[in-house]
């Protein structure tokens, strides 16, 4: 049962983050942006202000709830873009080989050589801050591991009997890749994708912290941390709660990824039974 624990806890944390983000308008006590009231500035956590208030008197609890929307959108969407790019490049490179494989390999090595956050920073600098540029920047910079994995899987699957049988039965290249190769490599791709979502949430926080993410006053966990930096000694709740939200979401995604790996990897499955 130990193997299932990470799956359950991770899944629950991730589901909680999604529910909170979706239901933010109903769960929040105040509007995260408009309900600023200097009369309530920098209130510590209390029964009225669960997570306290910031310098403008905005409710941190409500802002953390709305912040989930940005963090999760960025985490999920940018990782989906990464997975699609990585699988498309890696799968085709492993299947076709030849010059295309060389090109994809060179591109992957290039991506791995440049720290992805620096690359994302450069893209953000060109596109300007905002949610869309955040999605593009993070979606284009973290596909190299998925690509490596898809290529390696395609290489080993290509020599399987059923792939050769499909060729003999008149399947075209695209059909072979989609019906024969892709379903057989999906397990590890999903695991890497889940883990990647966690790091995308962190990258969003980092970029927003640097002022390149979502424009204030709309809240994201990263930008809330950034704003809270100066008051960390006088009003620590400003950084504690968004930090905790990031921590729990990323922890949940990593546990989920580990758990999925345990049930999707046939070898660990056979060990258990």
């Amino acid at each position: 049962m130990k193997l299932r624990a990470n799956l359950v806890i991770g899944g629950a944390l991730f589901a909680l983050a999604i529910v909170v983000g979706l239901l933010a308008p109903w769960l929040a006590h105040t509007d995260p942006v408009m309900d600023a009231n200097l009369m309530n500035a920098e209130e510590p956590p209390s029964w009225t202000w669960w997570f306290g208030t910031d310098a403008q008197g905005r409710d941190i609890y409500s802002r953390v709830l709305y912040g989930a929307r940005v963090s999760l959108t960025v985490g999920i969407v940018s990782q989906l873009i990464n997975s699609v790019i990585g699988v498309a490049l890696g799968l085709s490179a492993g299947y076709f080989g030849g010059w295309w494989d060389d090109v994809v390999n060179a591109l992957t090595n290039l991506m791995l050589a440049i720290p992805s956050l620096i690359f994302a920073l450069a893209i953000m600098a060109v596109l300007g801050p905002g949610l869309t540029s955040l999605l593009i920047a993070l979606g284009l910079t973290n596909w190299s591991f998925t690509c490596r994995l898809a290529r390696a899987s395609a290489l080993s699957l290509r020599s399987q009997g059923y792939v050769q049988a499909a060729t003999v039965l008149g399947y075209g290249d695209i059909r072979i890749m989609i019906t024969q190769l892709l379903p057989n490599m999906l397990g590890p791709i999903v695991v890497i994708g889940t883990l990647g979502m966690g790091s995308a949430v962190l990258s969003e926080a980092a970029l927003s912290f640097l002022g390149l993410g979502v424009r204030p006053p709309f809240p994201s966990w990263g930008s809330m941390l950034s704003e809270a930096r100066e008051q960390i000694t006088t009003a620590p709740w400003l950084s504690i709660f968004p930090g905790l939200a990031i921590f729990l979401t990323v922890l949940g995604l990593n546990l989920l990824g580990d758990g999925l790996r345990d049930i999707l990897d046939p070898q660990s499955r056979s060990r258990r039974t």
Partner: protein
Amino acid sequence: MTGSPLLEVEDLRIDLDDGARRVAAAEGISFRIDGGETFGLVGESGCGKSITALALIGLLRPPLSIAGGVIRFQGQEIQHLSAARQRQLRGNRIAMIFQEPMTALNPVSPVGRQIAEMFVLHKGKSWREANQLAVEALASVRVPAPERRVKDYPHQLSGGMRQRVMIAIALACGPDLLIADEPTTALDVTVQAEIIELMRNLCAERGTAILMISHDLGLVANVCRRVAVMYAGRIVEERGSADIFRVPSHPYTQGLVDSLPRLGSRAALGRTRLKEIAGVVPAITRFPDGCRFNPRCAQATDICRTTAPQTDGLEAGGFVRCHHHA
């Protein structure tokens, strides 16, 4: 049984090019298969029978390539067809089943879907129709409870069942030619007999010709009307399958027939040792000059070591490639 020629192979040569050298892995391969006929290609491992089959369906990949000759299918030369046209033939007009039923099915896809895919791919059916046809196809290979079995994954089926599924996939589009490359080698003997019987009956019903490739002369002679024996990249003898046992003409075929354990007359002679063919098949880069069988042949003379024999027609039909045939 016989009709117009379905498949004609003339003087086919397949080269192996390892970058440094080009050697002929198979040469002078000529045979013809009529519509609905059963034809066997027999030989030891590495004699070139499997690459001949791959050449027929256009799936030779470097370092192997067709270096000469003509492959005519239904009167049309197919060796230079575009990849897309060849793909339309494969699985549709020419189907193939493999040695390994364990690995030839996609493990993550239900078998019914894998059969249905053929109808979608080659016949342009909708998935609804195709799924219905898949149940019928599974019923035709005598899988019990086909409407439930279509949902099974390959690992839920036994080896024999999987080979039945492979046959259902191969025959789904009603091909004119079925290439069976060692179709039963991985199965045990009783299942082997069932599968062969099934394959033969289905093909006879539908008028599908069979090209059966095997190292098992007995099996091939049992299934096929005519048999070609290959040795070291050449066809050395081609005969009606009854004749090949009764009066084998080429010394290699004689050796093969003599090395088969048999009930009856030979056993009655006493506890004689099974005969063997001395020596081993030469490596592809070290084929001897002249007749390629000469180093292992008891009847070899000087001419065998210098001049490659041409094919000699036999009275009863067929031919033999030997300087000394009776």
